[in-house]
């Protein structure tokens, strides 16, 4: 593959230093601005760890308790900072343990570089100890991957890895480096990669498409914006807000788009999708123009495609041409980076307000408030609800916290009720739905934003999938706040069993250990709340704490998340109960 760097090589010869491949890897990381990485050592990556030891004043390596934890921590770091997260592992099981994190980063467009050690070149293909074909295994879950068997390749491949991970639609890249290439020496020099000839990260926006989009927007009577993570990755938050305000268009978020716009903005009308808000879902099928910005029409957003927004014209702002017309046909596709395309669009947009249309969202919200939200936030029953816990966290943090949620009922409740003022603040496993994501991701998020409050919201099921990362918090004294909403069930699956499998609770009842004692074993201050009267004060105490804090809240065992669009149903068929 030809890169631009190769071209330059012919014209200038930079100064070189003789060093080992392992040391070269460290210099590559430093050159890419990496100062923090997550990982776990082992045989085939030991030469690199030896160099990490020597460079510990410049590069902090955080030892997680499992390689999966390293990937999710790197993801949390990447999502909160917008920078590339880095994870490292050895060959064989070390490498295969990265796969879930890679798949998660791939589907949620998270920039991450994973470096794995590999058996020496002469042993490749021989079923050597801890040999696994991680290139073959990781191919479907990486944006790019490459095996380095020759030390000379290291600088170029590392430069390319970072360039590919962060450019265009970001994603995970895996570089597998054989042990001989780590030991061998090269004359090291480093040049950043600025282009790969077969790869076009950002399509050039077409002015015709922009004009066509503007015309549709200016003529629409009932326009509706759905914004996704493309706004956050493209850092187009201001442009989105300007568009929404200038044209007076109600806007709703996807799970990953959440926090791109102040949740209290009057035109921010809530969440779309399976457990989204009533108005945005129902009115998707009543708008005359659907403006999708940086989102990919996931099935959890659209429900049945046969009945999704058929009445509306569709404008799709998207950086990845493979997403256009994949699920929902676009009348106008505006390709490009969202910041650039929205900036080009804005001057062509007429000032407008769609008060009557906006009122329909307010009316629908009132229906949802009376049927669902009121009881969730201000329960009249004895048992605690997940939503009231989120509400207390909102109040205690002043809407300024980074909320890292796991997967399941608590995740949907967090996405529905958490309040955000700042972008890059909602970190969750959206596309892959990886239980166990939140605890390690919160560690990475905190390390990426030490000045911010980071609160992990986790269910009792997901918590136990990566609970070993309490060890990472203990060792690094990472001041994350951990909230386990314990309903003694795998709640979301139990909800489906109740609704669609006649309440046959197959393997969804959890017998849980004493979580407080476990946290205390790691020297983390821990409390359990079982009654409403203690909730507010304990949440306040947790947020006020300068150190890590564990809070378990015993919530109602069999609460369901509503509204809900049953799997495969139309957005119009959203159920309030």
């Amino acid at each position, binding site marked *: 593959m030809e890169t631009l760097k190769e071209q330059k090589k012919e014209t200038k010869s930079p100064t070189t230093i003789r060093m080992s491949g392992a040391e070269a890897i460290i210099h590559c990381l430093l050159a890419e601005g990496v100062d923090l990485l997550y990982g776990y050592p082992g045989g085939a990556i030991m030469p690199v760890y030896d160099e990490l030891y020597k460079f510990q004043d410049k590069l902090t390596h955080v030892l997680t308790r499992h390689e999966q934890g390293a990937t999710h921590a790197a993801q949390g770091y990447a999502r909160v900072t917008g920078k590339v997260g880095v994870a490292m592992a050895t060959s064989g099981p070390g490498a295969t343990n990265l796969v879930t994190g890679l798949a998660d980063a791939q589907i949620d467009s998270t920039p991450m570089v994973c470096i794995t050690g590999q058996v020496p070149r002469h042993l490749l293909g021989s079923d050597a100890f801890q040999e696994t074909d991680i290139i073959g295994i990781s191919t*479907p879950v990486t944006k790019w991957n490459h095996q380095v068997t020759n030390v000379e390749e290291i600088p170029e491949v590392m430069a390319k890895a970072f360039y590919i991970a962060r450019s265009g639609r970001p994603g995970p890249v895996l570089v597998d480096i054989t042990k001989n290439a780590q030991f061998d020496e090269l004359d090291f020099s480093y040049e950043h990669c600025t282009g790969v000839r077969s790869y076009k990260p950002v399509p050039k926006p077409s002015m015709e498409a922009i004009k066509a989009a503007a015309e549709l927007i200016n003529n629409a009577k009932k326009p509706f914006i759905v914004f996704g993570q493309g706004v956050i990755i493209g850092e187009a938050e201001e442009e989105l807000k300007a568009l929404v305000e200038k044209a007076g268009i109600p806007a709703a978020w996807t799970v990953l788009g959440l926090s791109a716009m102040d949740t209290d903005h009057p035109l921010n009308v809530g969440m779309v999708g399976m457990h989204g808000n009533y108005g945005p879902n129902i009115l998707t099928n009543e708008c005359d123009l659907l403006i999708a910005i940086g989102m990919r029409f996931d099935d959890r957003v659209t429900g049945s495609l046969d009945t999704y927004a058929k009445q509306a014209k569709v404008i799709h702002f998207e950086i990845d*041409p*493979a997403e256009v017309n994949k699920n929902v046909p676009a009348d106008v596709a505006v390709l490009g980076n969202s910041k650039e395309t929205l900036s080009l669009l804005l001057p062509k947009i007429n000032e407008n307000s769609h008060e009557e249309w906006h009122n329909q969202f307010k009316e629908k919200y009132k229906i949802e408030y009376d049927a669902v939200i009121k009881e969730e936030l201000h329960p009249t029953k004895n048992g605690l609800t997940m939503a009231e816990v989120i509400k207390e966290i909102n109040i205690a943090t002043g809407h300024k916290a980074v909320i890292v949620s796991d997967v399941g009922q608590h995740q949907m409740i967090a996405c529905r009720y958490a309040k955000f003022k700042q972008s890059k603040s909602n970190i969750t496993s959206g596309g892959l739905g990886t239980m166990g994501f939140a605890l390690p991701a919160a560690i990475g998020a905190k390390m990426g934003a030490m000045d911010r409050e980071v609160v992990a919201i986790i269910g009792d099921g997901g918590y136990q999938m990566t609970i070993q990362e309490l060890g990472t918090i203990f060792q690094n004294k990472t001041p994350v706040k951990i909230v386990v909403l314990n309903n003694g069930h795998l709640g979301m699956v139990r909800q489906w069993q109740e609704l669609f499998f006649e309440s046959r609770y197959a393997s969804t009842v959890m017998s849980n250990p004493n979580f407080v004692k476990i946290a205390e074993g790691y020297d983390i201050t821990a409390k359990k709340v079982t009654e409403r009267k203690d909730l507010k004060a304990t949440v306040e105490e947790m947020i006020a704490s300068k150190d890590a804090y564990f809070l378990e809240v015993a919530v109602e065992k069999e609460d369901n998340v509503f509204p809900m669009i049953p799997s495969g149903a139309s957005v119009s068929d959203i159920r309030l109960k």
Partner: protein
Amino acid sequence: MEKQWFTISVYSENNVGLLNRISGIFLKRHINIESLNVSKSEIENVSKFTIVVNTNEDWTKNIVRQIEKQIEVIKAFYHNDDDIIYQESALFKIASHLLFDERQIQNIIKESNSQIVTVSRDFFVLAKTGRRHEIDEMHDELEPFGIMQFVRSGRLAVTKAKMPITTILNDFYQDK
């Protein structure tokens, strides 16, 4: 949507692992690759994949975009049979004595426009280039006499329209 035959051409860098990455896109959608050919192309250091699938046009469009999205793919296209000139090649290994014992075989060789590639004491080899159905017909005609070995290549295709690969590559260098 109706299933049809589509030929997909992929221009790419010549890299280890890319075939795996491309075939994975078909695997994900449970689509069988009916034929596959990889070779060098008209441009130096650029490889060309020619892939034949039987599926609907919407899926083909999506697949082509997902192939093109791969870092090492320069450009991917899909074509109907009308858009391309295409051929396949086949080799037939047949026992030599049949050439003399079965007069019909000589007629088949003549009528099918195939060539005798080699003749030895025990066997001879016929090469046939043509459309799939022509090769199938020849196979059916020879089968009753006994075919020792048979192999057919993937589809080879060139498009009637121009392929702007060189322009794409030149644009890349100019943009930078």
